[in-house]
């Protein structure tokens, strides 16, 4: 028997190769004579081994051709952009973080981002009409003039969907902090007979739209294809967006804004 006791956490860390060397050596030594200890350890070693074995064959599965082709294409495009940065300026690559001059660079950056995404939204031909009978249809959203949106942003949890009195529908996707700690919310805004807008707003004394893009055509009930959200992803990366908050953290963050 050993006169040293080891906690379950230490045994688990030992099984996973995480225990500090000195302590691991003590366990090595104790295992020689302590069968009860070996039995406790076996649980951790065996669960690891069984799971490792069970999932090993998956690595031999061929990656489906379609997926592989898509990713090779992405790789080629990305490699080309790496080698020709100037040419890439007018594309999505423009959202990449760049070495910013100190101060004052933030505001122009937002303006550029919003301008570029509006251009993209129009370019998609996805149903935002800036002319004709609805001269400001898309821009009203950018201004967040609908009071229902504002209260929805302050009250709703991520994953919730709400029908607004205007007949539009809003779905909150996620809440996160940007690199400066501002609370930001990603949401989808569905207006009848119009495009689904995906937007990011951040709070500084009030909700401000930082990003908006048309993600799906008006008459398509399907969800936005992931590829059309690449701009959003690039944007989120550019502002240093953290991982989505848990619902609890989100509730706390929203409560703080209301104070």
């Amino acid at each position, binding site marked *: 028997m050993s006169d040293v006791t080891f906690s379950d956490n230490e045994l688990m860390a030992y099984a996973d190769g995480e225990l500090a060397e000195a302590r691991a050596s003590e366990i090595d030594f104790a295992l020689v004579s302590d069968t009860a200890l070996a039995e406790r350890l076996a*649980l951790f070693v065996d669960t690891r081994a069984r799971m490792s074995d069970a999932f090993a064959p998956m690595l031999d599965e061929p990656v489906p051709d379609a997926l592989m082709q898509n990713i090779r294409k992405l790789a080629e495009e990305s490699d080309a952009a790496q080698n020709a940065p100037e040419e890439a300026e007018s594309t999505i690559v423009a959202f990449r973080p760049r070495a910013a001059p100190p101060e004052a660079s933030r505001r122009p950056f937002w303006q550029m981002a919003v301008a570029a995404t509006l251009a993209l939204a129009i370019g998609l031909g996805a149903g935002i009409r800036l002319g004709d009978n609805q001269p400001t249809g898309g821009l009203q959203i950018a201004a967040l003039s609908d009071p229902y949106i504002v209260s929805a942003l302050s009250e709703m949890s991520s994953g919730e969907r709400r029908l607004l009195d205007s007949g539009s529908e809003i779905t909150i996707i996620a809440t996160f902090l940007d690199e400066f700690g501002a609370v930001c919310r990603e949401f989808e805004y569905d207006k009848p007979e119009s495009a689904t807008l995906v937007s990011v707003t951040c709070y500084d004394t009030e909700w401000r739209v930082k990003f908006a893009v048309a993600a799906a055509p008006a008459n398509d009930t399907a969800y936005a294809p992931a590829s059309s959200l690449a701009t959003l992803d690039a944007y989120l990366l550019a502002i240093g967006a953290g991982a*989505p908050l848990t619902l609890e953290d989100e509730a706390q963050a929203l409560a703080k804004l209301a104070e």
Partner: protein
Amino acid sequence: MNDRFSQDLIDFLPNLRRFAISLTRSRDLADDLVQITAEKAFAARDRFDPETRLDAWLFRIMRNAWIDMVRRKKTQGTQIDIDDKPDAAIVDGTRVVETSLMLKSARKAMAELPENQREVMMLICVEELSYKAAADILNIPTGTVMSRLSRARMTISEKLGINTPDRRSSAYKGGKRHE
């Protein structure tokens, strides 16, 4: 610059796909998730620090993408068990993979874990990442990683009957050391 990035990412696709299958519990959804992860990774490649581990970086992107996918698509209700479908390799006919009952029951035990325990088990016991790397990927403290990991193992050992006296003598070869 970053000359190896694309090739390294492509080489790592089988692991990404495996983690995606465990997150989504569906091969079809998993392939969507891998694709989304690759899109995000290429869009952000300038932000990847070559001094750090690409695997952990990619897993982190994938895991965040999965959270986003669940919220966006309300996907959770449509998940299917990973063993509802035969292994792709068998359907393929190009390779015979022995999927023994043992492997199946182990995969089932994994699939039945709560998601937050499943992801730590996959990252640490299957992908062989360190506690620290898993904590970074999941954005939680190392202590939380350990408590989830421990709970996951208790459940798995009960389901698989691992801690019965008969199994205790299974060969122990010593834990691997990481980093």
